[in-house]
């Protein structure tokens, strides 16, 4: 069996979660790589949550919210966009493979976009292989 990455997908309740649902009811095919965490808004996702997912063993993280202008809370996604931009730059800077953390806009009507995004993200993370850099394994001090 080929290795399937584990990707934590933080999906905003109002758009991307519904988009994922639509992909499901439309019977669109995409890799079984994601584990969905439903969040009220993309701006609910903090950098610590993203890093914690990686630390806990995820191979990648996808955060997806409503398109600009569509956020249920009007502008949550626009605040989030700034934060994610900075986080991505910081992760790149310290040499954490930038492809492991991805951000997307997917609306409730874009089931097909959701399926394509998951397929693409999965392919990219597959190419990188398992997350070994930022995964916490229990160690005994002094031994590796």
């Amino acid at each position, binding site marked *: 069996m080929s290795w399937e990455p584990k990707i934590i997908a933080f999906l905003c309740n109002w758009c991307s979660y519904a988009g994922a649902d639509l992909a499901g009811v439309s019977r669109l095919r995409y890799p079984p790589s994601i584990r969905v965490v439903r969040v009220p808004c993309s701006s609910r996702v903090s*950098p*610590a949550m993203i*890093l*914690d997912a990686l*630390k806990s063993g995820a191979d990648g993280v*996808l955060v997806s919210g409503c398109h*600009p202008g569509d956020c249920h809370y009007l*502008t949550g996604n*626009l*605040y989030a*966009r*700034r*934060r*994610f*931009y*900075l*986080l*991505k*730059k*910081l*992760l*790149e*800077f*310290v*040499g*954490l*493979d*930038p492809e492991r953390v*991805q*951000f*997307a*806009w*997917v609306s409730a009507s874009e089931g*097909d*976009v959701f399926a*394509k*995004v998951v397929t*693409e*993200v999965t392919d990219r993370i597959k190419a990188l292989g398992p997350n070994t*850099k*930022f*995964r*916490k394994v229990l*160690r005994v*001090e002094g031994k590796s």
Partner: protein
Amino acid sequence: MSTLTEKIREAAQKVLAEGLAEVVLGYTQGSLPYRNRVTAVNTPEETSRLIWPSFGVLNPANVLHKLKGKKVALISPGCVSRAVVVLCQEGQVKRDEVYLLGVPCPGMLDPSKVRDLGKKILRVEDDFKEKVLVVTSEGEKIVAREELLRQNCLECRHPTPPVYDELLEGEARKPSPSPYQKVEEIEAREVSARWQWFQEAVVSRCIRCYACRNACPLCYCPTCFVDDSRPQWVGKTRDPVDTALYHLVRAYHLAGRCVDCGSCEAACPMDIPLRLLTKKLEKEALSAFSFESGLDPEAPLLLTTFREEDPEDFMITQELKALGKI
């Protein structure tokens, strides 16, 4: 012409005598020639202890919260004034509760650069312009100031305080023409070399004493995320992943807030080049959002505002769209 120290004493005396503030936060000589202290002075007589420091490496704005309820004057080079501005923007301090005694800053020296000049350092004489005379147990040395300056002073964009109530006379350093050179050196490396740098220079050496956090004037959360236990973001051991997570989130929490005062680095017992992480975020905030911290107490903070046209080409959906895939 009087020295900066004389001007500071005179101005501090006036501030206390006229009741413009109840306390003056400034610097005094420390126990070693290359150590200066942050000190609170309460009476006009005590102002004679104040100095303009060569080694004022800890930011006095860090102790403002201990003086809550009092009107405090701060001896403020650029980075101190800017830290106070950020505290005002964040509602931690009211602008009219502080009196900023601005100093056009000639930059400060790095204690570790001076310490390395001899077995025992007996005396340091700084002209605050070009030269420093260092008297060691082996003899005297005259060193160019530029060689002894702290890295953050070499990279400082605002030696003259952008906000003040009174500005002392004097000549400030010129704003750095290449503030991001060190950051760019890291950026130019391959992904794996950058990871190696992060591990070797930062993560593996850090003992997680949190001195960097405690020294920072802008790390004031009553409960820091590292002390949360449910969820526990950071484990209690020196696991490298936990340490890396600490450094990433610490730097990130300072995005658009850090004023590059260098306190964190000065406090670090392991000489970790911590500022590179915050400096990287400073660089991104400037280039992507034309934002600089601590310039205007009325302005919004970097992350409490946005622009419609903020960059989004880093997002996978925008990338796929550009490729015609969606």
